């Protein structure tokens, strides 16, 4: 009772990375709270799935295995999670901020009347005082996220309602196995007792999934462009530089919104979080919305016409100049010096 729960997403028999990252974070939160970490897995053909989960320090794995539960549809997964949470009364429940987690999370939070904070960039345990109501709360989950287009960072708490729910994007937390020898229990749920026939009102009639061709998450070097790049044509310069130095191309939200780059290249709070050894920011002003997704890069080079652009404050090298001048020179001198 009153433990930390993580909803684990399944993709072709594998637990999604984002879920493993949340288990790693969940273990830490459970240690801080001196409680247990539990996982929920819902899908089909899940035999042995706990082997992927328990090593992250999971004390209990709840499994709902039924061929109607994969691929994901909202209502049956909601029914199972809601009933399980009513029985087990978790104090914290975490989900990935994915198409699944962002579909399921709000539905569960509405059914349980518990608060949900989307796209958290940090989760911590701390106390809270409600000065108006003169009440103090111990050991709440601080759900920290940028808001208002990234101009502010808000810390959200759910003082009264349980579970305290949060979603987190893939790549924001680090994933780390605690011990391959960790001992956890497994409990298989009687699916019939958790779902209703009318939960299956929506059916998937076609599915075409493809692995993303773009892999910015694991790239060692990223050349990233913002709105300041100015056009799709100018973006080609970034592809040239990336090609020459062996990098991937990323983009800020403004550049994606402007149609300069595909959405899967988006870095930042609403995109991917990256930690490359070198991040070259071209024409990116550097709102926190963006820097939240790249500030852990080992080295940052900022190229911007504005000498006061906020990105310069997280940069190791600042080049004040125009992309169309600077990038071709970088290509030229890289080639000359590696000859």
């Amino acid at each position, binding site marked *: 009772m009153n433990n930390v729960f993580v909803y684990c997403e399944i993709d072709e028999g594998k637990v999604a990375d984002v879920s493993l990252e949340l288990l790693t974070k969940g273990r830490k939160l459970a240690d801080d709270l001196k409680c247990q970490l539990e996982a929920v897995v819902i899908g089909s053909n899940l035999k042995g799935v706990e082997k992927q989960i328990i090593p992250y320090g999971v004390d209990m794995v709840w499994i709902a295995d039924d061929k109607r539960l994969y691929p994901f549809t909202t209502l049956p997964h909601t029914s199972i999670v809601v009933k399980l949470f009513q029985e087990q009364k978790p104090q914290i429940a975490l989900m990935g901020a994915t*198409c699944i987690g962002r579909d399921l999370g709000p539905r569960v939070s509405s059914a349980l009347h518990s608060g949900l904070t989307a796209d958290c960039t940090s989760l911590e345990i701390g106390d809270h005082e409600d000065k108006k109501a003169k009440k103090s709360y111990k050991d709440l989950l601080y759900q920290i996220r940028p808001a208002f287009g990234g101009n502010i960072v808000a810390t959200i*708490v759910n003082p009264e309602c349980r579970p305290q729910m949060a979603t987190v994007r893939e790549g924001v937390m680090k994933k780390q196995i605690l011990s391959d020898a960790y001992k956890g229990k497994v409990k298989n749920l009687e699916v019939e007792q958790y779902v209703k026939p009318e939960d299956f009102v929506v059916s998937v009639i076609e599915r075409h999934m493809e692995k993303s061709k773009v892999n910015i998450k694991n790239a060692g070097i990223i050349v990233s462009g913002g709105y300041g790049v100015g056009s799709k044509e100018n973006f080609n310069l970034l592809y040239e530089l990336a090609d020459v130095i062996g990098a991937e191309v990323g983009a800020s939200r403004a550049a994606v919104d402007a149609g300069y780059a595909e959405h899967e290249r988006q870095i930042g709070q609403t995109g991917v979080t990256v930690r490359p050894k070198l991040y070259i920011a071209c024409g990116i002003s550097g709102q926190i919305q963006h820097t939240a997704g790249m500030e852990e890069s080992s080295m940052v080079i900022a190229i911007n016409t504005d000498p006061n652009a906020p990105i310069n404050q997280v940069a190791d090298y600042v080049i004040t100049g125009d992309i169309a001048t600077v990038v071709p020179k970088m290509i030229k001198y890289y080639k000359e010096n590696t000859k």
Partner: protein
Amino acid sequence: MRMKGLKIVVLAKQVPDTRNVGKDAMKADGTVNRAALPAIFNPEDLNALEQALRLKDKYEGTEVTLLTMGPGRAAEIIREGLYRGADNGYLLSDRAFAGSDTLATSYALSCAIKQMGKVDVIIAGRQAIDGDTAQVGPQVAEKLGMPQITYAEEVVGVEKAKVTVKRRLENGVEVVEGALPMMITVNASAPECRPRNAKYVMKYKHARAVSEMQNVAEDYIALHNNRPYLHIGEWSVNDIETKEEELGLSGSPTKVKSIENVVFQAKEAKVLEPTDGDMDELMKELIANHTIG
């Protein structure tokens, strides 16, 4: 058998344009200057409206109603919707809704929708750009006991009381179908909304909600009395059935503990000029310390 028209509600929100945060958007003390941000029709709600209008084009007798919650000036986006082909709209506006988190917002919206009688389809944008939570659509659906299809790119059609929807997910597409009534939330990858139609602009340019009518000339009131379609419906908390404790701050499980305006910590950066010399040096340095190459 010819299907009779659908009753569609489009949920829309007026939002500050956080995508165009210019230099004036931050005050000298580093806080957000909300007044400097223009208020716009939330972009994905426009994608949602387009899907509703396409269903209206396809199925005769379909009625598209906009619903928004916000201050009096949010009636602007209802007019925007009327200009593009929506049939009518409601503004839900009351101090009692102030301070609502997504759950209290969803509760108020669901109470307003119940007031509208039988609804076949609710269509909303996936998320609003001022919060990016994507929670209101699914939470409204849950409050109404309605199934949901999120991340829609195209509402393909409605047949035999079943709706077929193409969804765009992180790494692929999915086609799903489900029985009406249904909540559908629409992605930015869906087609853009059609532009304003001159005919509708002429027809609705004087459409106003009650709270916009307080300081208008007498002849304006006469105009509204003669043309009832110029009334934008406006509901306060007294016009819909709600439980007070579910509204506003008291109906919001999440509380904002603290807000920090973003102030960057400066670190010592090496400043380079875009000259050949500096670029040559930079590349030599990066190659020498094995950062690249």
